[in-house]
Protein backbone atom coordinates (compact mmCIF):
# COMPACT_ATOMS: atom_id res chain seq x y z
CA UNK A 1 0.00 0.00 0.00
CA UNK A 2 2.77 2.42 0.94
CA UNK A 3 4.48 2.04 -2.45
CA UNK A 4 1.19 2.97 -4.14
CA UNK A 5 0.57 6.08 -2.12
CA UNK A 6 4.18 7.11 -2.60
CA UNK A 7 3.96 7.07 -6.39
CA UNK A 8 2.51 9.70 -8.69
CA UNK A 9 -1.17 9.73 -9.70
CA UNK A 10 -0.44 8.44 -13.21
CA UNK A 11 0.94 5.16 -11.96
CA UNK A 12 -1.97 4.80 -9.60
CA UNK A 13 -4.53 5.31 -12.33
CA UNK A 14 -2.74 2.87 -14.59
CA UNK A 15 -2.59 0.21 -11.93
CA UNK A 16 -6.19 0.84 -10.90
CA UNK A 17 -7.50 0.43 -14.45
CA UNK A 18 -10.47 -1.90 -14.51
CA UNK A 19 -12.83 -3.11 -17.24
CA UNK A 20 -15.42 -0.57 -18.37
CA UNK A 21 -18.29 -2.99 -17.92
CA UNK A 22 -17.49 -3.24 -14.22
CA UNK A 23 -18.00 0.50 -13.93
CA UNK A 24 -21.29 0.23 -15.84
CA UNK A 25 -22.63 -2.35 -13.41
CA UNK A 26 -21.46 -0.24 -10.48
CA UNK A 27 -23.32 2.74 -11.94
CA UNK A 28 -26.47 0.66 -12.28
CA UNK A 29 -26.21 -0.37 -8.63
CA UNK A 30 -25.65 3.21 -7.52
CA UNK A 31 -28.58 4.47 -9.59
CA UNK A 32 -30.83 1.82 -8.10
CA UNK A 33 -29.87 2.88 -4.56
CA UNK A 34 -29.76 6.64 -4.98
CA UNK A 35 -32.50 7.22 -7.56
CA UNK A 36 -35.47 6.51 -5.28
CA UNK A 37 -33.93 8.57 -2.46
CA UNK A 38 -33.40 11.52 -4.80
CA UNK A 39 -37.00 11.30 -6.00
CA UNK A 40 -38.15 11.20 -2.37
CA UNK A 41 -36.12 14.33 -1.68
CA UNK A 42 -37.59 16.10 -4.70
CA UNK A 43 -41.16 15.13 -3.76
CA UNK A 44 -40.80 16.17 -0.11
CA UNK A 45 -42.71 19.28 0.96
CA UNK A 46 -39.63 21.19 2.16
CA UNK A 47 -41.66 24.33 2.80
CA UNK A 48 -43.45 22.44 5.55
CA UNK A 49 -40.19 22.08 7.42
CA UNK A 50 -40.95 25.17 9.49
CA UNK A 51 -44.31 23.85 10.66
CA UNK A 52 -43.12 20.48 11.92
CA UNK A 53 -44.98 19.11 14.89
CA UNK A 54 -43.00 19.76 18.13
CA UNK A 55 -43.45 16.06 18.89
CA UNK A 56 -41.05 15.44 16.01
CA UNK A 57 -38.17 17.13 17.84
CA UNK A 58 -38.92 14.88 20.80
CA UNK A 59 -38.89 11.74 18.63
CA UNK A 60 -35.70 12.91 16.96
CA UNK A 61 -33.90 13.53 20.25
CA UNK A 62 -35.07 10.18 21.64
CA UNK A 63 -33.85 8.35 18.54
CA UNK A 64 -30.40 9.93 18.54
CA UNK A 65 -29.84 9.48 22.29
CA UNK A 66 -31.01 5.86 22.40
CA UNK A 67 -29.09 4.87 19.27
CA UNK A 68 -25.92 6.46 20.64
CA UNK A 69 -26.24 4.68 23.99
CA UNK A 70 -27.03 1.40 22.23
CA UNK A 71 -23.95 1.81 20.04
CA UNK A 72 -21.71 2.52 23.03
CA UNK A 73 -22.94 -0.68 24.70
CA UNK A 74 -22.61 -2.55 21.40
CA UNK A 75 -18.93 -1.59 21.24
CA UNK A 76 -18.29 -2.61 24.86
CA UNK A 77 -19.94 -6.00 24.30
CA UNK A 78 -19.21 -6.46 20.62
CA UNK A 79 -15.43 -6.11 20.62
CA UNK A 80 -14.85 -8.93 23.14
CA UNK A 81 -17.56 -10.96 21.40
CA UNK A 82 -16.00 -10.51 17.97
CA UNK A 83 -12.60 -11.41 19.42
CA UNK A 84 -14.00 -14.48 21.20
CA UNK A 85 -15.67 -15.97 18.13
CA UNK A 86 -12.47 -15.52 16.13
CA UNK A 87 -9.57 -16.08 18.52
CA UNK A 88 -10.72 -17.47 21.85
CA UNK A 89 -9.61 -20.94 22.80
CA UNK A 90 -13.06 -22.32 23.55
CA UNK A 91 -14.99 -25.34 22.30
CA UNK A 92 -17.86 -24.74 19.90
CA UNK A 93 -16.40 -21.47 18.63
CA UNK A 94 -17.46 -22.09 15.03
CA UNK A 95 -21.00 -22.95 16.05
CA UNK A 96 -21.15 -19.84 18.24
CA UNK A 97 -20.05 -17.80 15.26
CA UNK A 98 -22.93 -19.09 13.16
CA UNK A 99 -25.45 -18.75 15.99
CA UNK A 100 -24.40 -15.15 16.62
CA UNK A 101 -25.14 -14.16 13.05
CA UNK A 102 -28.76 -15.27 13.48
CA UNK A 103 -29.92 -11.93 14.97
CA UNK A 104 -28.78 -10.24 11.76
CA UNK A 105 -31.00 -12.52 9.71
CA UNK A 106 -34.10 -12.25 11.90
CA UNK A 107 -36.88 -9.99 10.65
CA UNK A 108 -36.86 -7.13 13.20
CA UNK A 109 -40.43 -7.83 14.30
CA UNK A 110 -39.34 -11.35 15.23
CA UNK A 111 -36.39 -9.88 17.12
CA UNK A 112 -38.97 -7.82 19.04
CA UNK A 113 -40.98 -10.93 19.89
CA UNK A 114 -37.78 -12.67 21.05
CA UNK A 115 -37.00 -9.70 23.30
CA UNK A 116 -40.52 -9.95 24.75
CA UNK A 117 -39.80 -13.59 25.63
CA UNK A 118 -36.79 -12.45 27.63
CA UNK A 119 -37.66 -8.96 28.91
CA UNK A 120 -41.44 -8.82 28.43
CA UNK A 121 -43.84 -8.63 31.33
CA UNK A 122 -44.05 -12.41 31.43
CA UNK A 123 -40.49 -12.87 30.22
CA UNK A 124 -37.73 -14.89 31.81
CA UNK A 125 -36.02 -11.74 33.13
CA UNK A 126 -38.82 -9.24 32.62
CA UNK A 127 -41.21 -10.81 35.12
CA UNK A 128 -38.74 -11.08 38.07
CA UNK A 129 -37.40 -7.57 37.36
CA UNK A 130 -40.91 -6.14 37.40
CA UNK A 131 -41.82 -7.85 40.65
CA UNK A 132 -38.51 -6.99 42.35
CA UNK A 133 -38.03 -3.40 41.22
CA UNK A 134 -41.40 -2.43 39.79
CA UNK A 135 -39.60 -1.65 36.52
CA UNK A 136 -41.24 -2.45 33.22
CA UNK A 137 -39.37 -2.47 29.94
CA UNK A 138 -42.52 -1.92 27.86
CA UNK A 139 -43.04 1.81 27.44
CA UNK A 140 -39.55 2.68 28.70
CA UNK A 141 -36.67 4.18 26.66
CA UNK A 142 -34.51 1.39 28.13
CA UNK A 143 -36.48 -1.02 25.93
CA UNK A 144 -35.70 1.13 22.90
CA UNK A 145 -31.98 0.89 23.70
CA UNK A 146 -32.25 -2.90 24.12
CA UNK A 147 -34.03 -3.27 20.79
CA UNK A 148 -31.38 -1.17 19.02
CA UNK A 149 -28.60 -3.04 20.80
CA UNK A 150 -30.07 -6.38 19.75
CA UNK A 151 -29.97 -5.48 16.09
CA UNK A 152 -26.75 -3.43 16.26
CA UNK A 153 -24.43 -5.59 18.37
CA UNK A 154 -23.94 -8.27 15.68
CA UNK A 155 -22.54 -5.60 13.34
CA UNK A 156 -19.78 -4.66 15.79
CA UNK A 157 -18.98 -8.30 16.56
CA UNK A 158 -18.95 -9.28 12.88
CA UNK A 159 -16.80 -6.33 11.91
CA UNK A 160 -14.25 -7.08 14.65
CA UNK A 161 -14.13 -10.80 13.94
CA UNK A 162 -13.65 -10.38 10.21
CA UNK A 163 -10.86 -7.88 10.85
CA UNK A 164 -9.18 -10.41 13.14
CA UNK A 165 -9.66 -13.06 10.49
CA UNK A 166 -7.59 -11.06 8.03
CA UNK A 167 -4.84 -10.44 10.57
CA UNK A 168 -2.25 -13.13 11.14
CA UNK A 169 -1.76 -12.60 14.83
CA UNK A 170 1.98 -12.15 14.26
CA UNK A 171 1.95 -8.73 15.88
CA UNK A 172 0.49 -10.20 19.04
CA UNK A 173 3.04 -13.00 18.99
CA UNK A 174 5.85 -10.49 18.64
CA UNK A 175 4.43 -8.41 21.47
CA UNK A 176 4.15 -11.45 23.74
CA UNK A 177 7.63 -12.65 22.85
CA UNK A 178 8.97 -9.24 23.87
CA UNK A 179 7.51 -9.83 27.31
CA UNK A 180 4.22 -7.94 27.17
CA UNK A 181 1.42 -9.29 29.34
CA UNK A 182 -1.86 -10.39 27.72
CA UNK A 183 -3.63 -7.20 28.72
CA UNK A 184 -0.72 -5.08 27.54
CA UNK A 185 -0.76 -6.84 24.18
CA UNK A 186 -4.50 -6.31 23.92
CA UNK A 187 -4.25 -2.62 24.73
CA UNK A 188 -1.10 -1.74 22.84
CA UNK A 189 -1.31 -4.04 19.83
CA UNK A 190 -4.65 -5.73 19.17
CA UNK A 191 -7.02 -2.83 19.89
CA UNK A 192 -5.12 -0.23 17.85
CA UNK A 193 -5.06 -2.66 14.91
CA UNK A 194 -8.81 -3.16 15.31
CA UNK A 195 -9.72 0.48 15.58
CA UNK A 196 -10.89 0.90 11.95
CA UNK A 197 -13.02 -2.25 12.24
CA UNK A 198 -14.51 -1.09 15.54
CA UNK A 199 -15.30 2.30 14.03
CA UNK A 200 -16.93 0.72 10.99
CA UNK A 201 -18.96 -1.69 13.14
CA UNK A 202 -20.03 1.13 15.45
CA UNK A 203 -21.19 3.25 12.53
CA UNK A 204 -23.22 0.38 11.08
CA UNK A 205 -24.68 -0.33 14.51
CA UNK A 206 -25.59 3.30 15.02
CA UNK A 207 -27.16 3.67 11.60
CA UNK A 208 -29.08 0.46 12.11
CA UNK A 209 -30.26 1.75 15.52
CA UNK A 210 -31.40 5.09 14.11
CA UNK A 211 -33.53 3.27 11.54
CA UNK A 212 -34.76 0.52 13.86
CA UNK A 213 -38.52 0.09 13.62
CA UNK A 214 -39.83 -3.47 13.89
CA UNK A 215 -38.13 -4.63 17.07
CA UNK A 216 -38.69 -1.29 18.81
CA UNK A 217 -42.41 -0.99 18.15
CA UNK A 218 -42.99 -4.64 19.02
CA UNK A 219 -40.94 -4.72 22.22
CA UNK A 220 -40.88 -1.11 23.48
CA UNK A 221 -44.18 0.27 22.20
CA UNK A 222 -44.94 3.68 20.74
CA UNK A 223 -45.30 6.24 23.51
CA UNK A 224 -44.48 9.84 22.49
CA UNK A 225 -41.41 11.08 24.39
CA UNK A 226 -40.62 7.63 25.78
CA UNK A 227 -40.50 5.02 23.05
CA UNK A 228 -41.77 6.71 19.88
CA UNK A 229 -38.62 6.97 17.81
CA UNK A 230 -38.39 8.68 14.42
CA UNK A 231 -39.08 5.50 12.42
CA UNK A 232 -42.23 4.89 14.50
CA UNK A 233 -43.26 8.53 14.09
CA UNK A 234 -42.77 8.11 10.34
CA UNK A 235 -44.86 4.94 10.30
CA UNK A 236 -47.62 6.67 12.27
CA UNK A 237 -47.54 9.74 10.04
CA UNK A 238 -47.76 7.53 6.94
CA UNK A 239 -51.27 6.60 8.00
CA UNK A 240 -52.54 10.16 8.29
CA UNK A 241 -50.07 12.58 6.81
CA UNK A 242 -47.89 10.97 4.13
CA UNK A 243 -46.33 14.33 3.22
CA UNK A 244 -45.14 14.81 6.78
CA UNK A 245 -43.86 11.22 6.78
CA UNK A 246 -41.70 11.92 3.72
CA UNK A 247 -40.34 15.03 5.32
CA UNK A 248 -39.51 13.20 8.56
CA UNK A 249 -37.83 10.44 6.62
CA UNK A 250 -35.61 12.94 4.82
CA UNK A 251 -34.72 14.86 7.95
CA UNK A 252 -33.64 11.58 9.53
CA UNK A 253 -31.75 10.48 6.43
CA UNK A 254 -29.89 13.77 6.00
CA UNK A 255 -28.94 13.81 9.65
CA UNK A 256 -27.67 10.22 9.69
CA UNK A 257 -25.73 10.57 6.48
CA UNK A 258 -24.29 13.86 7.72
CA UNK A 259 -23.11 12.32 10.97
CA UNK A 260 -21.62 9.27 9.28
CA UNK A 261 -19.81 11.33 6.67
CA UNK A 262 -18.46 13.65 9.37
CA UNK A 263 -17.28 10.73 11.50
CA UNK A 264 -15.73 8.95 8.55
CA UNK A 265 -13.78 12.03 7.52
CA UNK A 266 -12.70 12.54 11.10
CA UNK A 267 -11.60 8.94 11.59
CA UNK A 268 -9.84 8.46 8.28
CA UNK A 269 -8.07 11.73 9.04
CA UNK A 270 -6.79 10.28 12.30
CA UNK A 271 -5.61 7.09 10.67
CA UNK A 272 -3.96 8.83 7.77
CA UNK A 273 -2.11 10.99 10.29
CA UNK A 274 -0.91 7.97 12.24
CA UNK A 275 0.39 6.22 9.21
Amino acid at each position, binding site marked *: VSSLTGDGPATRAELGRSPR*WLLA*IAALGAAFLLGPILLLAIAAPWSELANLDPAVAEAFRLTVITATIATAIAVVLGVPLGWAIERANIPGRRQARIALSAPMLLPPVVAGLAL*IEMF*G*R*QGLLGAPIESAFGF*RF*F*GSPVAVVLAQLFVGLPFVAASVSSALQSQSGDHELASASLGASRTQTLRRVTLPLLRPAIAAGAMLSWARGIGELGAT*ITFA*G*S*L*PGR*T*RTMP*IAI*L*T*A*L*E*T*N*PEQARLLALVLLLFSVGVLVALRTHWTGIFAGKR
Partner: protein
Amino acid sequence: VKLFAIVFSLLLLATACQSSSDNELVIMAASSFQVVTDELAQAFEADTGQAVTFNLAGSQTLATQINSGAPADAFLSASAVATMQAGGRISLVRPILTNELVVLVPAGNPKQITGLNSLSDPELVVVLADPTVPAGAYTVEALEQAGLTLQPSSLDPSAAKVAARVAEGEADAGVGYLTDAVNPLIHTVALGDGVTVNAEYFAAIVDNSAGGTLFLDWLTGDSAKTILESAGFNT
Protein backbone atom coordinates in the same frame (compact mmCIF):
# COMPACT_ATOMS: atom_id res chain seq x y z
CA VAL B 1 -24.14 -8.42 -21.12
CA LYS B 2 -24.31 -11.82 -19.56
CA LEU B 3 -24.60 -10.23 -16.12
CA PHE B 4 -27.42 -7.98 -17.26
CA ALA B 5 -29.17 -11.04 -18.58
CA ILE B 6 -28.77 -12.71 -15.21
CA VAL B 7 -30.12 -9.71 -13.28
CA PHE B 8 -32.98 -9.39 -15.72
CA SER B 9 -33.94 -13.04 -15.53
CA LEU B 10 -33.77 -12.91 -11.73
CA LEU B 11 -36.27 -10.04 -11.79
CA LEU B 12 -38.46 -12.04 -14.16
CA LEU B 13 -38.27 -14.89 -11.70
CA ALA B 14 -39.56 -12.55 -8.99
CA THR B 15 -42.59 -11.64 -11.08
CA ALA B 16 -43.31 -15.33 -11.43
CA CYS B 17 -43.87 -15.41 -7.67
CA GLN B 18 -47.12 -13.51 -7.96
CA SER B 19 -50.21 -15.65 -8.00
CA SER B 20 -51.08 -17.19 -11.30
CA SER B 21 -54.40 -15.79 -12.46
CA ASP B 22 -54.55 -12.29 -13.83
CA ASN B 23 -58.33 -12.07 -13.56
CA GLU B 24 -58.24 -12.24 -9.78
CA LEU B 25 -60.11 -9.35 -8.16
CA VAL B 26 -58.08 -7.14 -5.85
CA ILE B 27 -59.89 -5.74 -2.83
CA MET B 28 -58.09 -3.06 -0.84
CA ALA B 29 -59.31 -3.65 2.72
CA ALA B 30 -58.68 -1.92 6.05
CA SER B 31 -56.59 -4.03 8.45
CA SER B 32 -59.57 -4.84 10.66
CA PHE B 33 -60.99 -7.02 7.87
CA GLN B 34 -58.06 -9.39 8.32
CA VAL B 35 -60.15 -11.64 10.58
CA VAL B 36 -62.61 -12.42 7.78
CA THR B 37 -60.67 -12.21 4.51
CA ASP B 38 -59.96 -15.94 4.18
CA GLU B 39 -63.58 -16.89 4.77
CA LEU B 40 -64.88 -14.13 2.50
CA ALA B 41 -62.53 -15.12 -0.30
CA GLN B 42 -63.54 -18.78 -0.11
CA ALA B 43 -67.26 -18.06 0.04
CA PHE B 44 -67.07 -15.50 -2.78
CA GLU B 45 -65.23 -17.92 -5.02
CA ALA B 46 -67.71 -20.69 -4.18
CA ASP B 47 -70.68 -18.42 -4.96
CA THR B 48 -69.41 -16.69 -8.08
CA GLY B 49 -66.50 -18.78 -9.37
CA GLN B 50 -64.40 -15.61 -9.25
CA ALA B 51 -61.10 -15.57 -7.37
CA VAL B 52 -60.43 -12.63 -5.09
CA THR B 53 -57.41 -11.45 -3.15
CA PHE B 54 -57.27 -8.92 -0.32
CA ASN B 55 -54.63 -6.26 0.08
CA LEU B 56 -54.70 -5.35 3.78
CA ALA B 57 -53.27 -2.15 5.26
CA GLY B 58 -54.31 0.95 7.14
CA SER B 59 -57.07 2.82 5.28
CA GLN B 60 -54.85 5.83 4.63
CA THR B 61 -52.07 3.70 3.22
CA LEU B 62 -54.57 2.00 0.93
CA ALA B 63 -55.90 5.38 -0.21
CA THR B 64 -52.33 6.42 -1.07
CA GLN B 65 -51.78 3.19 -2.97
CA ILE B 66 -55.01 3.64 -4.95
CA ASN B 67 -54.06 7.23 -5.67
CA SER B 68 -50.72 6.19 -7.05
CA GLY B 69 -52.26 3.69 -9.44
CA ALA B 70 -52.16 0.36 -7.62
CA PRO B 71 -54.38 -2.26 -9.27
CA ALA B 72 -57.65 -2.50 -7.35
CA ASP B 73 -61.31 -3.30 -7.91
CA ALA B 74 -62.88 -2.22 -4.63
CA PHE B 75 -61.90 -0.37 -1.46
CA LEU B 76 -63.17 -1.25 2.01
CA SER B 77 -62.15 1.62 4.26
CA ALA B 78 -62.34 2.22 8.01
CA SER B 79 -62.47 5.95 7.54
CA ALA B 80 -64.67 8.23 5.48
CA VAL B 81 -61.78 10.68 5.13
CA ALA B 82 -59.45 8.01 3.75
CA THR B 83 -62.14 6.93 1.31
CA MET B 84 -62.37 10.46 -0.01
CA GLN B 85 -58.59 10.75 -0.26
CA ALA B 86 -58.48 7.77 -2.57
CA GLY B 87 -59.41 10.39 -5.14
CA GLY B 88 -60.84 10.26 -8.62
CA ARG B 89 -60.57 6.54 -9.21
CA ILE B 90 -63.34 5.63 -6.80
CA SER B 91 -67.11 5.84 -7.06
CA LEU B 92 -70.28 4.71 -5.31
CA VAL B 93 -69.04 5.24 -1.76
CA ARG B 94 -71.45 3.79 0.74
CA PRO B 95 -71.44 2.77 4.40
CA ILE B 96 -71.51 -1.01 4.68
CA LEU B 97 -70.75 -2.10 8.23
CA THR B 98 -70.16 -1.00 11.76
CA ASN B 99 -67.79 -2.39 14.34
CA GLU B 100 -68.30 -1.72 18.02
CA LEU B 101 -65.52 -0.09 20.03
CA VAL B 102 -64.79 -2.18 23.13
CA VAL B 103 -62.23 -2.72 25.85
CA LEU B 104 -59.87 -5.58 24.96
CA VAL B 105 -58.47 -7.74 27.76
CA PRO B 106 -56.40 -10.94 27.76
CA ALA B 107 -58.56 -14.10 27.79
CA GLY B 108 -59.99 -14.72 31.26
CA ASN B 109 -59.82 -11.00 32.11
CA PRO B 110 -57.12 -11.43 34.79
CA LYS B 111 -57.36 -7.82 36.00
CA GLN B 112 -61.17 -7.99 36.22
CA ILE B 113 -61.75 -4.99 34.04
CA THR B 114 -65.38 -3.93 33.86
CA GLY B 115 -65.26 -1.12 31.33
CA LEU B 116 -63.51 2.05 30.23
CA ASN B 117 -63.66 3.31 33.82
CA SER B 118 -61.38 0.53 35.10
CA LEU B 119 -58.60 1.70 32.79
CA SER B 120 -57.75 4.80 34.83
CA ASP B 121 -56.04 2.56 37.43
CA PRO B 122 -52.38 3.67 37.20
CA GLU B 123 -51.19 0.14 37.97
CA LEU B 124 -52.58 -1.13 34.66
CA VAL B 125 -50.66 -1.20 31.40
CA VAL B 126 -53.12 0.25 28.91
CA VAL B 127 -52.47 0.56 25.17
CA LEU B 128 -54.51 2.66 22.76
CA ALA B 129 -54.42 3.37 19.05
CA ASP B 130 -52.82 6.69 18.10
CA PRO B 131 -55.46 9.45 17.82
CA THR B 132 -54.40 10.05 14.21
CA VAL B 133 -55.57 6.61 13.03
CA PRO B 134 -59.29 5.70 12.83
CA ALA B 135 -59.35 3.40 15.88
CA GLY B 136 -57.56 6.07 17.92
CA ALA B 137 -59.98 8.79 16.87
CA TYR B 138 -62.89 6.59 17.96
CA THR B 139 -61.08 5.96 21.26
CA VAL B 140 -60.74 9.70 21.84
CA GLU B 141 -64.47 10.04 21.18
CA ALA B 142 -65.24 7.29 23.73
CA LEU B 143 -62.96 8.83 26.36
CA GLU B 144 -64.62 12.21 25.83
CA GLN B 145 -68.05 10.65 26.28
CA ALA B 146 -66.85 8.98 29.47
CA GLY B 147 -65.05 12.11 30.70
CA LEU B 148 -61.86 10.12 31.23
CA THR B 149 -58.17 10.81 30.69
CA LEU B 150 -55.91 7.77 30.54
CA GLN B 151 -52.15 7.31 30.84
CA PRO B 152 -51.49 4.82 28.06
CA SER B 153 -48.16 2.96 27.80
CA SER B 154 -48.30 3.06 24.03
CA LEU B 155 -50.21 4.86 21.28
CA ASP B 156 -50.02 2.37 18.47
CA PRO B 157 -50.18 3.06 14.75
CA SER B 158 -52.93 0.50 14.22
CA ALA B 159 -55.82 -1.20 15.99
CA ALA B 160 -54.22 -4.53 15.09
CA LYS B 161 -51.10 -3.65 17.10
CA VAL B 162 -53.24 -2.82 20.14
CA ALA B 163 -54.96 -6.20 19.87
CA ALA B 164 -51.62 -7.99 19.45
CA ARG B 165 -50.23 -6.47 22.65
CA VAL B 166 -53.30 -7.55 24.62
CA ALA B 167 -53.07 -11.05 23.14
CA GLU B 168 -49.36 -11.31 24.05
CA GLY B 169 -50.15 -10.21 27.61
CA GLU B 170 -47.80 -7.22 27.29
CA ALA B 171 -50.78 -4.97 27.94
CA ASP B 172 -53.43 -5.47 30.64
CA ALA B 173 -56.04 -3.80 28.48
CA GLY B 174 -56.53 -1.92 25.25
CA VAL B 175 -59.31 -0.25 23.35
CA GLY B 176 -60.16 -1.89 20.06
CA TYR B 177 -62.92 -3.47 18.04
CA LEU B 178 -65.39 -6.20 18.86
CA THR B 179 -64.02 -8.15 15.89
CA ASP B 180 -60.63 -8.42 17.64
CA ALA B 181 -62.19 -11.11 19.84
CA VAL B 182 -61.96 -13.52 16.89
CA ASN B 183 -58.53 -14.12 18.42
CA PRO B 184 -59.20 -16.62 21.25
CA LEU B 185 -56.50 -14.94 23.39
CA ILE B 186 -58.57 -11.76 23.52
CA HIS B 187 -61.80 -11.14 25.41
CA THR B 188 -63.88 -8.01 25.10
CA VAL B 189 -65.65 -5.90 27.70
CA ALA B 190 -68.25 -3.27 26.76
CA LEU B 191 -67.14 0.35 27.25
CA GLY B 192 -69.85 0.72 29.91
CA ASP B 193 -71.53 3.72 31.57
CA GLY B 194 -73.69 4.28 28.52
CA VAL B 195 -70.69 5.06 26.33
CA THR B 196 -71.10 3.65 22.83
CA VAL B 197 -68.95 4.29 19.80
CA ASN B 198 -69.32 2.47 16.52
CA ALA B 199 -66.69 2.52 13.84
CA GLU B 200 -68.21 2.90 10.42
CA TYR B 201 -66.77 1.20 7.34
CA PHE B 202 -67.23 2.40 3.81
CA ALA B 203 -67.07 0.57 0.53
CA ALA B 204 -66.26 2.04 -2.85
CA ILE B 205 -65.69 0.78 -6.35
CA VAL B 206 -62.37 1.55 -8.01
CA ASP B 207 -62.23 2.47 -11.73
CA ASN B 208 -65.88 1.40 -12.16
CA SER B 209 -64.65 -2.18 -12.05
CA ALA B 210 -67.37 -4.70 -12.91
CA GLY B 211 -65.68 -7.23 -10.64
CA GLY B 212 -65.62 -4.70 -7.83
CA THR B 213 -69.36 -4.08 -8.29
CA LEU B 214 -69.97 -7.83 -8.24
CA PHE B 215 -67.99 -8.17 -5.02
CA LEU B 216 -69.68 -5.30 -3.21
CA ASP B 217 -73.15 -6.55 -4.21
CA TRP B 218 -72.18 -9.98 -2.94
CA LEU B 219 -70.84 -8.43 0.29
CA THR B 220 -74.32 -7.19 1.18
CA GLY B 221 -75.85 -10.63 0.50
CA ASP B 222 -76.66 -13.36 2.99
CA SER B 223 -73.58 -15.56 2.80
CA ALA B 224 -71.22 -12.62 3.37
CA LYS B 225 -73.46 -11.29 6.14
CA THR B 226 -73.23 -14.56 8.05
CA ILE B 227 -69.43 -14.48 7.92
CA LEU B 228 -69.19 -10.80 8.86
CA GLU B 229 -71.66 -11.06 11.71
CA SER B 230 -70.07 -14.15 13.22
CA ALA B 231 -66.81 -12.17 13.34
CA GLY B 232 -68.54 -9.38 15.26
CA PHE B 233 -69.31 -6.86 12.52
CA ASN B 234 -72.72 -5.24 12.51
CA THR B 235 -74.21 -5.33 9.02
